[in-house]
């Protein structure tokens, strides 16, 4: 689209030198983003149980022990292992929280996006401003506010309190994703449907919902992964017997660095990346 000026010779040389430097810079930026994660991936296969920075052969032991399988390596120290039943339990907790919180938030966030995109009402600006606050408020402020509230209101800290806590910011997140979708959508079909005598509910079910579905699905998947990975808010509002996977990893890290953490981290990163990729794909898809 942009009009290109015919570059003079000296200009052309300057531009190409500039873009070579920019390429190197951009590539190093990507290395900065990904090298730390690749490092964990490599370490997770390193048999050296003492110093991960020194390679002493390939092993799958760290993965095997996560699932309660016997390690194959001879020099395996049993003190390094976490109880697989415990891991299973925290993963289950995390999935329950992430699925419920993202499902509820998708419904609430989508409803809110429809209201602000398709209706004029008193206080709309205020609503739109309010919807940004839970996302921008530092996690610790929201976490302790919820802790004080739940304890004061007599809630027992449990999976339910975590789900409620996650819904407050995830709804706003889904709202933003679905709003973007609604804003880029052609309203002619909705108008036609209304002209033909369909009520708002029928129009929504038959026209609007199918058209915004990719945005809704994208919002759901991104909310799911944000909930699954949340550390700080969960940290304050989880009960003693309702640990989630990130809290389990936090406790593991506080006890010290062990090779098993690498294996667990790799599995979690892979899962997060797969779900987030799907979410980003749906969010950006055009109809």
């Amino acid at each position, binding site marked *: 689209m942009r009009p290109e000026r015919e570059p003079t010779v000296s200009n052309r040389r300057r531009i190409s030198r500039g873009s070579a430097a920019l390429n190197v810079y951009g590539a190093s930026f990507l290395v900065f983003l990904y090298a730390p994660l690749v490092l964990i991936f490599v370490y997770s296969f390193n048999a050296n149980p003492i110093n991960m920075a020194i390679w002493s052969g390939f092993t799958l032991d760290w993965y095997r022990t996560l699932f309660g399988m016997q390690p194959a390596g001879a020099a395996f120290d049993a003190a390094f292992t976490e109880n697989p039943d415990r891991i299973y339990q925290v993963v289950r907790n995390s999935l329950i929280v992430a699925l419920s919180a993202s499902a509820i938030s998708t419904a609430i966030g989508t409803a*809110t996006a429809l209201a602000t995109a398709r209706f004029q009402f008193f206080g709309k600006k205020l609503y739109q401003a309010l919807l940004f606050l839970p996302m921008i408020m530092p996690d610790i402020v929201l976490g302790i506010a919820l802790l004080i509230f739940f304890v004061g209101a007599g809630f027992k800290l449990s999976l339910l309190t975590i789900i409620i806590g996650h819904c407050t910011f995830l709804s706003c997140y889904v709202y933003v994703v679905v709003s973007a979708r609604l804003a880029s959508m052609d309203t002619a079909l909705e108008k036609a449907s209304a002209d033909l005598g369909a009520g708002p509910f029928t129009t929504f079910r038959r026209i609007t919902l199918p058209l915004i579905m990719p945005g809704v699905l994208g919002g759901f998947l991104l909310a799911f992964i944000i909930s699954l990975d949340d550390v700080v808010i969960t940290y304050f509002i989880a009960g003693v017997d309702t640990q989630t996977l990130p809290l389990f990893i936090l406790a593991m890290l506080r006890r010290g660095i062990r090779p098993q953490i690498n294996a667990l981290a790799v599995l979690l990163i892979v899962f997060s990346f797969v779900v987030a990729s799907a979410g980003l794909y749906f969010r950006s898809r055009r109809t």
Partner: protein
Amino acid sequence: MSGPRTIERERTRALALLLTPITLLLGIFFLIPLGITIVYSVLEPGLYGGVVWSFYPYNYGRLFGWPLGAGEEFEPLYIQILLNSLKYALLTVIVSLALCYPVAFWVSRMSGMAKNLMLFAITLPFFANLLIRIYAWLLLMRPTGTINSALMSLGVLDKPLNMMFTEFAVIVGLVYVLIPFMFLPIYASVERLDWSLVQASQDLGATPFQTFRRIILPLTAPGILGGCVIVFIPALGNFIVPSFLGGSKVQLIGNVIERQFLQARNWPFGSTLSTVIMGSVMLIVLLYALGMRGSSSRAARKRADSV
């Protein structure tokens, strides 16, 4: 068939139905908890955790030196930690801005598919678990970690460089964790940049630096400002990064709040610190909103002048 009046009534009902869930959710589980935090900040700490329901402004005295009473003393340490947290948040903003700004131009010059893939690649690490991203830097920077092992085996160092539990480690961690928030708004404004203006400036004989300062920088300023705000705010409250990479050397305000709630069990004082952060966030957001409004009306005036 439904007449226009029934449709109007149905629309009102639909709107009420759509807005009720979010109103209840944010009203009960967001606004009320934040309100209670503010109330707690002026209550008296109970003997064993808990609170006493009487007006007690001295938590603020302990933090700011006024008002004092009921045995609370001014502890300048907290002001220092607060200022230190502001400094770390500011450094995080500066470093991530410097890292992201050129990359935004790099990506904006790519063509279709490559551009989308690159945007995806830069967004994706944000979805890796926060703890794991911090843990990776722990592996890299600790005395027996990757960087030290590599440098020592190459003979560059003869004893490990001490990177852990330093300012440097905390800034690196904060930048790494928050960088996608800086990149995306900057990229959005670089992508919208009108290159014909840059061209015109060069044609009129401006030096590259003049073009940058007078054209590129002002036009991308909204993205820069947006990125700075949404990096600064979470950096201000973060306590996970300093607790792993800063150890006991680097204490930020988030660490103090966490301790007030989970160890010292002085909830009112913790609430006071939290209220101060909340107030700073509201102030920053307000200034940002005013700034954006000001700049957009200034731009409109300029456009009107040039016609």
